[in-house]
């Protein structure tokens, strides 16, 4: 428990003036929370300055961020964390992967199916794949990224290169071996994919899609998990 002697309290008050955390739900807490919940559907990172506007100003936001984060986790299972301290953006991810595709609306399902195919391919190829190779694989499945697809929609390339990247499902890396080579683009699993979709899930998906025993992917699974542990 915090020290309660008068001297200690006034000293604490002076030191922690800027970060006196609010512990009760007030109108501003609700406003911040509602802003986050309203914007979490699009799955695009939320800017700190927009949160500050919802709270009134930056200080009011700072005092409440801890409580808001706790409430989102305790009541909704939404993990709210800073994506990047440089750009001051936050994202919401789920505490657990989806138990089934039914948690998505019929409109969202084609997108997630495409995403699973891409994540599966990246996973099978050691968690990093050049864009041209990815698009080549999709062509084998009759998905031309620059043409309208009957199931996956009009702008598949945009979906992959912009939407999935913005939503943090995919990570895009530029790599240039040396000054004389053209830069290459690689795709990896993004932060959100790692948080919301388990490798085991992808293995099950791959096993079904490719009609193989899930144990055939033990090698890739071990590799992915090792890379994960290294990062952490």
């Amino acid at each position: 428990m915090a020290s309660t002697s008068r001297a200690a309290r006034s000293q604490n008050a002076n030191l922690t003036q800027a970060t006196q955390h609010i512990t009760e739900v007030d109108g501003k807490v609700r406003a911040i929370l509602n802003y986050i919940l309203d914007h979490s559907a699009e799955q695009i990172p939320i800017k700190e300055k927009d949160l500050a506007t919802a709270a009134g100003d930056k200080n009011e936001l700072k005092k409440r961020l801890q409580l808001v984060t706790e409430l989102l986790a305790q009541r909704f299972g939404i993990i709210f964390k800073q994506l990047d301290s440089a750009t001051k953006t936050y994202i919401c991810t789920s505490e657990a992967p989806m138990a089934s595709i039914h948690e998505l609306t019929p409109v969202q399902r084609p997108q997630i199916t495409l995403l699973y195919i891409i994540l599966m391919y990246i996973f099978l190829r050691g968690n990093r794949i050049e864009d041209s190779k990815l698009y080549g694989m999709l062509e084998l499945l009759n998905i031309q990224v620059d043409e309208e697809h009957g199931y996956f929609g009009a702008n598949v390339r945009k979906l992959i290169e912009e939407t999935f990247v913005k939503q943090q499902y995919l990570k895009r890396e530029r790599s240039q071996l040396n000054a004389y080579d053209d830069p290459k683009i690689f795709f990896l699993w993004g932060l959100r994919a790692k948080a919301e979709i388990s490798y085991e899930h992808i293995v099950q998906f791959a096993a079904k899609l490719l009609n193989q025993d899930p144990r055939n992917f033990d090698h890739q699974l071990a590799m992915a998990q090792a890379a994960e542990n290294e990062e952490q």
Partner: protein
Amino acid sequence: MEVVKRGFTRACKNHSYLCYETIDEILTPLCASHKVSKPASNEAIKAFVNDINDSIRDLGQSLVFIKYPLMGKEYLVYAKTDATPDSIANTGLTAEECQYFSKLLDKIATADDCRIPWNVAYNELFLQGLAKPPKKSRMQHLLQKWSQMGYFLDKDEYIYLGPRSLVELNFYLTSSYSEHIKSCTLCKGLVLWDIRCGSCQIQFHRDCIHTYLQKRDICPSCGSLWTTPLRRSSSASS
């Protein structure tokens, strides 16, 4: 169980409105993966949802069951507790697009039987007076998005108010459009497209009047003998 409740809450928020079949499709694998037993009956589901409500109500969110006569179904709606047309669905929309939402609502609320033909919804007359009105294709896209969210319903060439509007905008609709949109005198909830008294034409919820008529055989509003049959499937204006 808490993880299951939270997972279910997130799924409800995603769907905006769900029928019992969808609820079951979500709960079955969700409960199985966390090794808890699924709420077995509709009553158990309602109790389960009530528990969730207790934890999200003070944050301005709620899960509400509503009977929707147009589709003959009961839906579970994810609704914010203090929404207004301005605060709804306005993530990333321009002021003109928000106005389109309000105008659509207005047009439908004041129309006969609370519905407008679908082509009226895209009529440019709608947006008279706006400095930068959205294009027709954008209007179509928005209406489709709002329908997916449950604010409107596109059925048989007409646009109706959707289940989510009836829950979230209950107060707004009954107070701003009191001439057109009434509350059922028996339960005080908003009532649309439901059973009318043959004499005075006042509307009641099918279930409310059914319960009432088990004790008396007159209209609660005008007192005349109740003559309208309570058949299973009713048309919009019986």
